[in-house]
C-alpha cells in the first residue's frame, strides 16, 4: 500500500516550535549579549556566563516543573513559597542536628506529598488549579514563617555539595539545572508519559475518551513539579547557607513567564523544556545586561514585564496568519486587508 508522505521539510520547519519560538529567543539572546559585550567585553567572559546560569538555576528548575504542568493544561502558583518552605525545613533539620541526606529526602517527600494533594484535588474534584494553588501560596508562606519563627535559619556549611561545590569548574546548581532540562526534554519528547501530557493539555476530554489516563497524568505533573520546586528550594538554601522563609516570592510568576516565552500556552498542549530553558536564559541575560549597562535596578521588573508582553504579542501576530478554523481574532482581518492592499499596490 502506498504511504502518505510527510509535509515538505521547509514547511515542517517553519511550523516547528524550534523555529517559531526558540529561534527568535536565541537571536534576542545573541543580540543582547553582543551589544553588551561591545561595551564591556567581560559580558561574554566565562565567569559571567557561568554567573548568569548560576543566577537562574533555581528559577530554571522550578520552570521545568511548570513546563510539564502548563503542557498538561495546568498551573501551580504555589511553587515559589513551597521552595522557600523546602529551604526552611532543610535548614531546620540541619540546625537540629540531622543528617543532610535525610534532610533532603524528607524535604522532597514533603513536597511530593503536597504535589500529590494538589493533583488529587485538581483531577478528582475538578478544582481550577489557579485558585487552589493561589491558596497554597499563602499556606506555604505561613508554614515557612512558623517553622523558622520568622527569621532566616542558618544551615552552616553542610549543604555545600548542593549549592556551592564545583564539578569540572562549574557550580553544582548549574549541573542540576542542565541535567533536569535534558532529562525533562527526553521524557517529554520520547516517552509515553510525555505524549500523554501533551494529549491531555491539547484536549482533555478527547484524551480521556480515547483511554489516556488523564487524571493520573495530571497528578504526576503536580507531583513532579512540586518535587522539583522543593529541590530548587534546597539548592537556593544551600547557595546562601540559609533557609530564608521570604526567599524568592517572585519565582512562580517568573517561571510561568519563562515557559510562555519558550512557546508554552496556558491553554495547554504546548511548551517544551528546551524552550523553557532558552526562556530562562533570556530572562537572565536581560537581567545581567541591565547590570552591565548600569541601568538602575528599579527598571528590572519593567524590562522583565516588557520582554514578556513583547514576546506574546509577537507570537500572537504570528498565529493570526496560521489560524484557519475557530474564532478569528480581531487583528486577523486587519492584517489580511493590509496585506491584500499592499499586494494590490505591488501589482
Amino acid at each position, binding site marked *: 500500500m502506498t504511504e*502518505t508522505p510527510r*509535509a515538505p521539510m521547509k514547511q515542517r520547519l517553519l511550523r516547528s516550535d524550534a523555529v517559531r519560538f526558540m529561534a527568535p529567543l536565541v537571536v534576542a539572546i545573541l543580540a543582547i549579549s553582543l551589544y553588551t559585550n561591545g561595551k564591556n567585553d567581560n559580558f561574554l567572559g566565562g565567569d559571567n556566563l557561568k554567573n548568569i546560569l548560576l543566577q537562574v538555576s533555581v528559577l530554571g528548575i522550578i520552570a521545568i516543573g511548570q513546563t510539564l504542568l502548563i503542557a498538561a493544561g495546568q498551573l501551580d502558583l504555589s511553587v515559589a513559597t513551597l521552595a522557600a518552605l523546602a529551604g526552611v525545613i532543610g535548614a531546620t533539620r540541619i540546625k537540629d542536628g540531622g543528617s543532610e541526606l535525610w534532610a533532603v529526602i524528607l524535604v522532597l517527600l514533603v513536597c511530593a506529598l503536597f504535589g500529590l494533594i494538589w493533583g488529587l484535588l485538581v483531577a478528582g474534584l475538578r478544582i481550577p488549579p489557579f485558585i487552589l494553588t493561589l491558596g497554597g501560596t499563602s499556606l506555604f508562606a505561613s508554614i515557612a514563617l512558623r517553622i523558622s519563627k520568622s527569621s532566616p535559619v542558618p544551615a552552616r556549611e553542610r549543604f555545600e555539595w548542593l549549592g556551592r561545590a564545583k564539578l569540572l569548574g562549574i557550580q553544582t546548581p548549574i549541573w542540576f539545572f542542565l541535567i533536569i532540562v535534558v532529562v525533562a526534554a527526553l521524557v517529554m519528547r520520547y516517552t*509515553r508519559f510525555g505524549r*500523554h501530557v501533551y494529549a491531555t493539555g491539547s484536549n482533555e476530554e*478527547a484524551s480521556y475518551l480515547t483511554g489516556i489516563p488523564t487524571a493520573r497524568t495530571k497528578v504526576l505533573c503536580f507531583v513532579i513539579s512540586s518535587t522539583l520546586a522543593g529541590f530548587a528550594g534546597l539548592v537556593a538554601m544551600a547557595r546562601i547557607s540559609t533557609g530564608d522563609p521570604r526567599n524568592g516570592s517572585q519565582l512562580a510568576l517568573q517561571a510561568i513567564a519563562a515557559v510562555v516565552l519558550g512557546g508554552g500556552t496556558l491553554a495547554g498542549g504546548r511548551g517544551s523544556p528546551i524552550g523553557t530553558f532558552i526562556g530562562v536564559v533570556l530572562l537572565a541575560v536581560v537581567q545581567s545586561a541591565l547590570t552591565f549597562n548600569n541601568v538602575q535596578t528599579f527598571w528590572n521588573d519593567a524590562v522583565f514585564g516588557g520582554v514578556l508582553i513583547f514576546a506574546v504579542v509577537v507570537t500572537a501576530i504570528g498565529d493570526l496568519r496560521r489560524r484557519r478554523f475557530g474564532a*478569528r481574532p480581531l487583528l486577523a482581518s486587519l492584517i*489580511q486587508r493590509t496585506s*491584500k492592499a499592499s499586494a494590490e499596490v505591488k501589482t
Partner: protein
Amino acid sequence: MTIDALELRGISKSFPGVHALADVSLVVRPGTVHAICGENGAGKSTLIKIATGAQNADSGVIRIDGQEIDHPSRRVMQKLGIRAIFQERQIALDLSVAENVLLDCLPKRFGRVDWRAAKTLASERLQALEIDLDIDAPVRTLSVAQLQMMEIARAVSFEARLIVMDEPTASLSRHELEPLFRVIERLRREGVAVLFISHHLEEVFEIADEITVMRDGSVVAQGLTAEFTPASVAELMFGRIIDSSRVNDRADDQAGKPMLVLKGVSTERLNNVSFSVASGEILAVTGGIGAGVSELARVAAGASLKTSGEVFVVDESRKMQGIRSRRHALRLGLAFLPADRKRQGLLLERTLVDNVVLGQQAVGLHPIFTPSSAAKLAKSLVPAANIKTANIDVVVGTLSGGNQQKAMIGRWMGVKTKIMIFDEPTAGIDIASKFEIYNELRRLANSGVAVLVCSTDFQEVGQVADRVLVMRSGNVIGEIDGPSATERRLLEMEMSK
C-alpha cells in the same frame, strides 16, 4: 426585477496547496431557499465562510442588495443582515437560553439590561417559531437538538435578510425536522432568503427552490429544483452514480463469539439494557431523541457511570471482564469514537500524525516513542484508513468531517482493537463520505472486530447493520435483523406501543 439578496460573482480562494474555490458565482433571491449540494471538500464550507465574511476571497465580488461590499467581515455582513448558523456551535454555555437568543441585542433601560423585557422578548421569539424551551434554563443543560433550535431562533430574531444554514439537519432527528422546515417556510413567506447547505438530498428537494451543485471547488450545475432529480444531483455531486442501498453484508454468515456483553445496565436515563455484540458483526442501537442511544454508547465504552448492571468484555481466555473505567476498557481492546469529534475526539490544533498515533500512545505498550516512529506509523495508517490528504503533517482541524472521522478510525487501526463503539458515526458527514465510513465499518467487522453503532439515523442503521436494536426512553423495545430494517419499519417499531 427583484434585487438579489446576495450575489457572489467569480469567487476564488486558495489555501496553501489547495485550490478551495475556483470562479464560483451564486445568486440568492429574497424569499427563496437556495440549497448548495456537494460532497466534502467540494468547497461548500469555504463558500459560506466567504459569504458570511468569516473568510475573505482571493478574488471576486460580493453584492448585497446590489451593493458591492468592499471589505467583508463577520461584523459588516451581520449588519447587512447576513446571518449564519454554523456547524460549530456559537453558544455561551453558561448563560441562559434567553441571553443566548438575544446575545448581542439585549434590551436596555436606563443603560442597563432590562431582564424582564429580555425574557418576554426571548420567549416571544421562541414561541413565534414554536420552539419549546425553558428560557431560564442554563444552556449547558440542553441537548444538541435543542441548542440548534435555540441558535436558529437567535439568527431568525435579527433583522435577517439572508440566513445561511450549514448542515442544519445534521444533528436533528426526524421529529425535529418538521419545526425546522416550518421555520424556513415562514422565513420564505416573509421574504428572507435562505442558503441551505445539506447533504440530505431528500431534505433539499423538500425545501429548496433552487439548487447549486458544487464539485472540487467549482459550480457544476445551477438551476430550479424542478430541473433536477435527487439521482441527477447525486451524480453531479460525485461525478458518478451513487448506490444508496445497503453496504455489503458480512463476509461469512456465521455469527462470531460474543465480545461485548451488557447485562442489565441502568443509569438515570437507561433502564435495564442487555445485549451482546459478537466479533465480525455490526450491531446498531437506534431510537429517537431521548431514547438514550448516545448515553448507552458512553456507558458501554466505560466513559459514563452506571447505577447498576455490568458491561463485560470477553478477553483472550474467554473470560468475562467487567470494565471498571474508560482506560480499563481500552486495555481490554475497546475503542470509543464519540459523536462530537471536534470536542471529544480530536486534538484539533495538532497534526494528523499526533492524532492517528494517539491510539497507540494511549494503549502504551511501548513506553518509548520517537517522532520518527510516530511519522512512520502515521504514513501507513493514513492510507489504511483512506484519509485523503496531501501529507500527514496537516493540522486535523482543517480536514473535512469525513476525513476527521477516518482519522479517528485510523487511530484504532494501529492497535489491537477488538470492539469499536461508534456514537453517530456519520454526524455532519456528506453522502459519499458516509458510504466510505460504512465501508470502513464493514471492513473492520470483516477483520473480526465487534462493531457497535449507536445512531439516531434510521437510514444509516438500515444500510450498515447486521442487527438492529430499537430503543425508546432508555428501554430496548425491539430487535430486527439488518436487511429488513428499513427506515419505515424502524419508524413503526419506534412509534408502536
